[in-house]
């Protein structure tokens, strides 16, 4: 028998058993403590496993990376801002930064725009649930698989030979010469095409949430406007859309973070060739080259880009808690 199977079974059964035992043991142990102390100590025991893991794998490493970004490759000396000077002086890094900005803007606009459009449209057809499943399902597959799938959309063969890519197949049907899609870096066209792949995956996410919010709008409100003679467009523009705005904000923050972290698709489809690098991929590449100082600096740039969103998230959460 595969020894790994044994290990896996031990882990799958053993670790939860230990964790459950830990909670019961805490309770037994607390009986020894004076009654006043029990309720004060207990929460910390319940939180300890989570806080420990968060500290070891998220909080301390993030601080470590920030410190590391001011050190040289071997972490033997502090080099001040050298790694950042490299970043903002390197053409490749600046292209990656530009592309990440494009990812944020276009992925958000595409996903929210299409998600909203589809949510509104499917709300009025009988096969709504089927249509939603079709749009939603790419979210379940890996970006690696999505990259493979879309390779056959963008594939390019020399003019005059049969095309294997769908887009060039369509062009060929109209007698138009094939286009080498992913190599066109004019106006970052190829980066936009990579964003399209991610849009294909994430529109379903925006659609599902916006659709749920849409169904939460009172029909009487919309009907009142219609009775007053408002056109469908005006009802949408002046009632539906403003009511959806808070939800759009929530969806947008999630998609912005996804866009900043986008790595797999670029790695699988172009690996950064033809100026399609982005921050997440650059971070991986410098790490892979053993340039730990520079790689940390790239990660910190990514972190700095995300901090405002974190602040927004926390503010929104606070506002919500105040309502509760």
């Amino acid at each position, binding site marked *: 028998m595969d020894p790994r199977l044994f290990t896996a079974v031990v882990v799958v059964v053993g670790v939860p058993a230990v964790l459950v035992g830990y909670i019961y043991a805490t309770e037994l142990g607390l009986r020894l403590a004076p009654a006043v102390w029990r309720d004060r100590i207990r929460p910390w025991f319940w939180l300890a496993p*989570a806080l420990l893991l968060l500290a070891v794998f998220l909080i301390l490493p993030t601080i*470590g990376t920030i410190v590391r970004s001011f050190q040289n490759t071997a972490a033997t000396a502090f080099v001040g801002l050298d790694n950042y000077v490299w970043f903002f002086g390197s053409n490749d890094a600046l292209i990656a930064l530009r592309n990440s900005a494009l990812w944020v803007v276009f992925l958000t606009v595409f996903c929210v725009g299409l998600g909203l459009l589809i949510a509104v449209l499917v709300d009025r*057809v009988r096969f709504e649930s089927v249509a939603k499943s*079709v749009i939603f399902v790419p979210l379940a597959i*890996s970006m690696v698989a999505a*990259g493979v799938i879309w390779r056959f959309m963008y594939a390019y063969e020399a003019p005059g030979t049969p095309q294997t890519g769908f887009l060039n197949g369509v062009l060929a049907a109209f007698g138009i010469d094939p286009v080498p899609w992913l190599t066109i870096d004019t106006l970052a066209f190829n980066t936009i095409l990579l964003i399209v792949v991610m849009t294909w995956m994430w529109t379903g996410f925006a659609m599902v949430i916006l659709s749920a919010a849409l169904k939460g709008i009172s029909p009487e409100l919309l009907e009142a406007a219609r009775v007053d003679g408002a056109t469908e467009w005006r009802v949408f523009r002046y009632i539906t859309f403003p009511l959806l705005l808070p939800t759009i904000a929530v*969806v947008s923050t999630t998609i912005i973070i996804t866009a900043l972290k986008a790595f797999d698709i670029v790695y699988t489809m172009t690996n950064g060739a033809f100026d399609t690098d982005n921050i997440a991929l650059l971070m991986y590449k410098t790490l892979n080259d053993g340039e730990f100082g520079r790689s940390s600096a790239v990660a910190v740039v990514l972190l700095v880009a*995300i901090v405002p969103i974190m602040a927004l998230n926390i503010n929104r959460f606070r506002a919500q808690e105040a309502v509760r």
Partner: protein
Amino acid sequence: MTAAQTTKPAVANTAVGSQPSPAGKITLNFLVILLMAFWLIPTIGLLVNSFRPAADVANSGWWTGLLSPQNLTLDNYATVLGQSGLVDAFINSLFITIPSTIIPLFVAAFAAYAFAWMSFPFRNVIFVAVVGLLVIPLQTTLIPVLRLFRDLGIQGSFLSVWLAHTAYGLPFAIYLLRNFMGSLPKEVFESAAIDGANPAVAFFRLAIPMSVPALAALAIFQFLFVWNDLLVALIYLGASNPENLPLTVVIANLVNSLGSGWHLLGAAAFISMALPLLVFFALQRYFVRGITGGAVKG
């Protein structure tokens, strides 16, 4: 009975809605079907290609395969499953994913219960910090964690990715579960306390059974996240232990090395998609509820 129930709202809707003209209705249906076609075509293309012989895949578009269905074959799947370590990678993916899905559920449930139903100093501050951690890109943790694994001597082991995935999944898990558990009726826990049940009993006998929908949603998310992950596996397993690599990394490597082996890639990708799609279609309800619960609420 059911027919009456389903037609009723439809009638009500058209009465309430602005009575679209028949032409408008056709346009609307056409548009939605067009969008569905846009979404399906890429996947259908790969699916068709995964059943076509190598020579056909390399020399003609997948749509021509639909014209000659007699050429379709299972050879690619047989080849892929027979060689190239794909079966091993599939098993590795399972080994990585199952513990990485189960362990965080327990750890997060304890913390979420404490945040929801126990009072302690700095409770809100700590919880807000966890909400803040939701957005931390795991890229910012890679280098120090990699070093930690090296120092501990577990670099490249399954244990390292189990720990990493557990920790990375925690902020969202705690957030979702705390929101769900916090909305459970207070009276239940109060009367349990009056009956002399200690918090451990109240947690396992009441809170956990009542939180099954949220736990299910979370399990699906974490499963899909880990199964589909590329970066964590690439960094923590990739260089040091190629034998433990999951499907995503193996397929990504195939993409960059195959060149002429495109026919195998389609089959490999579909094998990797099989399990997520199964989970998705079987448990779509929980999945959607998890997303809307996590996002509309928060």
